[in-house]
């Protein structure tokens, strides 16, 4: 399995895996991807605002900039597939089809949050939508996601597990324990490494001896490739390739999504470890939503008026979620002692 290499002549801030042809989207696909990416973006912007207002507490890790990854991957999946990730998880939940009201109400710690207000930003689940969390310990979701794949194999079904983790988690030992078992037992799991270039404040070059994370499965014979994680079309294409590999019983597959987070690691991170210019350059050149927008206009899938309608509908959806999450009551005190044991 060939591993795509970074083009050394590419713009140093370019997250793209150069040279890979990107299949075009149909009108429906482009519009749907645009709408979902925008929903995530607006949701996260609103969450950031509400954090500033003191409505959301604790840690809050925003996904702004990385939207193409989850949206493209979700387009490659089918019902029954499972998704699991770390703590930067709001985008994954929205991409999985979870209700922004329930997600936002969890962020505010209210009764109708997905975890009844007991999990918060980092710990949310939806069995119905195939979303298995939302995990707060860096890397811990990787063996868990491998176990979801194990369950698929055990039951002999056609489902696969998409296990997301970041470039920081890629240095955790349990990731490699998981890789070994996944390949040994040919488990249907796609490991999606969201390489946003910074593990909190530590750049990948300062933390990783091998910075091409798609190669991290080589000693386990797990194929991997780097993907332009800013282009939702490239993500979907790579996701489909990996999914068919898994569904054919060939075992796990690694996709390193080259992406970027615009905001700090969490709300309290001033992001002094990178320059304003670096962020701006990625934002203006590679923004996944802007790129989709230009494409839609260029191909006349919609005009400015049509896009404005989508934008307005998304804003409305997010405002409703915020409204709901602000006025939903806090959990009843009796909830303190529920859900410890079944």
């Amino acid at each position, binding site marked *: 399995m060939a591993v795509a290499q970074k083009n050394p002549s590419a713009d140093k801030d370019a997250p793209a895996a150069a040279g890979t042809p990107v299949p075009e989207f149909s009108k429906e696909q482009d519009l749907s991807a645009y709408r979902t990416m925008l929903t995530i973006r607006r949701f996260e912007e609103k969450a950031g605002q509400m954090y500033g207002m003191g409505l959301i507490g604790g840690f809050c890790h925003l996904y702004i900039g990385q939207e193409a990854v989850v949206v493209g991957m979700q387009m490659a999946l089918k019902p029954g597939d499972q998704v699991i990730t770390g703590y930067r998880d709001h985008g994954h939940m929205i991409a999985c089809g979870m209700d922004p009201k329930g997600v936002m109400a969890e962020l505010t710690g209210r009764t109708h949050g997905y975890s009844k207000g007991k999990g918060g930003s980092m710990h949310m689940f939806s069995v119905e939508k195939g979303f298995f969390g939302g995990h707060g*310990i860096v890397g811990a979701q990787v063996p868990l996601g491998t*176990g979801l794949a194990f369950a698929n194999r055990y039951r002999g079904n056609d489902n696969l597990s998409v296990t997301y983790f970041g470039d920081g988690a890629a240095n955790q030992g349990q990731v490699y324990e998981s890789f*070994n078992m996944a390949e040994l037992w040919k488990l249907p799991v796609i490991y999606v490494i969201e390489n946003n270039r910074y593990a909190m404040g530590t750049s990948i070059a300062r933390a990783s001896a091998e910075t091409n994370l798609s190669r991290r499965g080589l000693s386990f014979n797990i194929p991997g490739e780097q993907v332009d994680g800013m282009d939702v079309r490239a993500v979907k294409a790579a996701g489909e390739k990996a999914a068919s590999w898994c569904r054919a019983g060939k075992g796990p597959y690694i996709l390193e999504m080259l992406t970027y987070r615009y905001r700090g690691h969490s709300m309290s991170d001033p992001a002094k470890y990178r320059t304003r210019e670096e962020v701006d350059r990625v934002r203006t050149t590679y923004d996944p939503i802007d790129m989709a927008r230009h494409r839609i206009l260029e191909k006349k899938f919609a005009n400015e008026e049509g896009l404005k309608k989508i934008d307005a509908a998304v804003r409305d959806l997010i405002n409703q979620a915020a409204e709901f999450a602000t006025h939903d009551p806090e959990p009843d005190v009796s909830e303190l002692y529920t*859900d*410890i*044991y*079944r």
Partner: protein
Amino acid sequence: MPIEVLMPALSPTMEKGNLAKWLKKEGDSVKSGDIIAEIETDKATMEVEAADEGTLGKILVPAGTADVAVNTPIAVILSDGEDKSSITSAKVTLQPKAAAPASPVKAQDAPAPKSNTPETPTPQAAADPDIPEGTEMVIMTMREALRDAMAEEMRRDKDVFVMGEEVAEYQGAYKVTQGLLQEFGDKRVIDTPITEHGFTGLGIGAALAGLKPVVEFMTFNFAMQAMDQLINSAAKTLYMSGGQMTCSIVFRGPNGAAARVAAQHSQDYSAWYSHIPGLRVIAPSNAADAKGLLKAAIRDPNPVIFLENEILYGHTSPVPKLDDFVLPIGKAKIARAGSDVTIIAWSMGMSYALKAAEELEKDGIQAEVIDLRTLKPMDTDTIIASVQKTGRAVTVEEGWQQSGVGAEIAARIMAHAFDYLDAPVARVSAKEVPMPYAANLEKLALPSVAEVVEAAKAVCYR
């Protein structure tokens, strides 16, 4: 000088074994490294190699002999020029290194002398409310009872599977999973790499997806590598998901001190896991409880830590012959009724407690012995009812005192039966040191029958 070949100890806890087969006969010449016999321990069949050259002069223990104690002379090897007459005329020399295991073993399997912990006395058979009157009882080892529990649950529910290191082809490092691979196949009895953190998380993931894994830790000492998954992923997910994600999984394996395996392989984790909301913690002391509670643990929708004990694996006790013997989690048992002092123990601690109760009886002290069986949730009611009767209590554990289970029991007694106490609660425990290797120091580090007797007398002001 004739050399005696002694019955070898082939595991840290082996005290006796069966002489299965002689591969040399009297008069055969043997040289160092020759396999001369096969010995069955309760875990495996091992080959005995000669460590000296000469002629097999006399076989002292015939093939087929059961329960030959470690260090019993089993044969005599004659050097060149010696004949059989020298066997009786000459004083035989001990051959201290009589045998080596036939295959490489992991550190915790290394040969070592037998344990110094007592056999658990069988308590006087009081009517057991969990077992219908007239039920036929079968004597079996705790090892067999645990295996039967898993096999029965696997037959009953296809979502139940067993995974861990050496559980399948090797038949279990301690032979608890013996025969499961043969009956259920390698899809349901799964050998893992040595990767505790990884396979613990993988098992939990499978449980979140609705399967019912039974994960064996070769010993709970190695589960420290997996602690984050056990606590953060298994115990907390139901709560963090607002009740959406259940995690029905059993983690089982030997816990506590084995024998002569030193500090890193001898630790009691009872208190560690008992501290965690979301976990159930079970620690049986006998075969019947092991079976009934392991079956209950596998059916329980919550993560269960099932603490076994290597020394107890080979101990036999009666198990009810019932189609489906399941015990309630969270119920202690009065293992021995008494009126003067309450002794509270579980797992290996019950061996000390019951033996001590026998000693105390000789001095006219009637001890009531409570086998907690489940540490979390703890059956406070049974403890309190007993202490209200006796007014005195002693706890016994192989863990350390600070923040230990005994400390928790003492606090509960103080909270709920303060006015009934005639003496402060006494705790017998491991000494607060890492487990030493030396036999004499190890013995001192562990609780003892004498310490339990002394503590019971002290609280009785005797």
